[in-house]
């Protein structure tokens, strides 16, 4: 693939679906520096994945897949540095703050997602973005029935939290 063609596809993907990247980054990293590091890692993996995309799945599914694959095995930059492994130089200022204040309901959802285990977090993100059980099973690599079990556990955790917070 020509570099210009790869650039064009990547730009299209990024402008159309960067919301997916923010969602994954916010679900797996909690400090600004970590979010910047993870975002950079994900963007690089997506850039590298352009050549491998065969249009067998939709672009959002592909981007979700690459982003979650990166996030789930991502290690904090500080941890890598402590173990003597040189992390990728993070470009400071890569992520900027949004002009509008975040919706408190969205923030609440992220707080609940953060309390889930790593694999359940992926399932929760895909569920909230409307992926079917079959698609979630294929992206995560588990059976549909296991997806069902995980989703019902996530739903009851969310409902329990809402009920707890609604108590006077």
């Amino acid at each position: 693939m020509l570099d210009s063609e790869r650039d064009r596809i990547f730009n299209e993907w990024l402008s159309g679906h960067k919301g997916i990247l923010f969602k994954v980054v916010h679900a797996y990293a909690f400090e600004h520096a970590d979010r910047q590091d993870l975002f950079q890692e994900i963007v690089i993996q997506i850039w590298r994945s352009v050549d491998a995309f065969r249009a067998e799945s939709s672009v959002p599914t592909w981007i979700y897949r690459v982003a979650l694959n990166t996030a789930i095995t991502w290690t904090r930059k500080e941890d890598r540095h402590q173990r003597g492994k040189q992390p990728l130089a993070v470009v400071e200022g890569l992520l900027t703050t949004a002009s509008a204040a975040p919706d408190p309901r969205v923030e609440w959802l992220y707080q609940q997602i953060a309390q889930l285990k790593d694999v359940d977090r992926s399932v929760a993100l895909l569920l909230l973005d409307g992926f079917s059980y079959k698609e979630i099973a294929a992206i995560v690599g588990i059976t549909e029935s296991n997806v069902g079990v995980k989703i019902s556990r996530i739903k009851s955790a969310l409902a329990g939290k809402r009920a707890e917070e609604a108590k006077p």
Partner: protein
Amino acid sequence: MNLEDLMEVWRSQDAAPLQGVNETLLRLALRQDEAKQQASGRRAMWFVYIAMAFTVGQMVLFLAIMLELQYREVLSGWDYAVAVVGLAAALTLSRMIYVGYRAQALREQSFGESLRDQVNRQLARIDPFVRFSWANWKVVAIMVLGFGVAAAISFLGARINHKPYEEAWLMVRGGIVYSLIGIGIVGWWLRRLWRRDLAPRKRRLEALLKEFDAE
């Protein structure tokens, strides 16, 4: 609030993203990665070139030594035997390293694209370091073959200089001592890498794998 309401709230981010991206810095990050990838590709190519040069070099060396010995008419049964054993060891060693390298690459490619496959692929990258133990026959075989090559070259090097057999065998012992020191340094470095980086990573990945099946 039911699931549909939560999904509605969740999708509101698409219209008003939580963050923005500095496009100029993003390009810079990608260029950095591209440069890093190219450097890594060049290193991998050099590794292949060096491995090929090493294999060919060993054969040329053995051939040159044998021709020299034949020319000087100092060849004896021992010289032939050592040369044949050394050459066989060099060929087997090169083949084992190449086959191991290929097998690892194929194993990593065999995984699919799901999250679980990604975790398994990461684990497969750690596996060669787990297998680096004296209990593994392949590691022992590589070490023995390495000694064999070093010993044969030392022996024939001594013979080419008209040293008596006693001195030639002394050279073999010297070669083995140097090989042992080299193996000791590599072993220490691998143990350090394992303890500081790979073992915690392996534990984390195995815990993740368990999470996939947890109900």
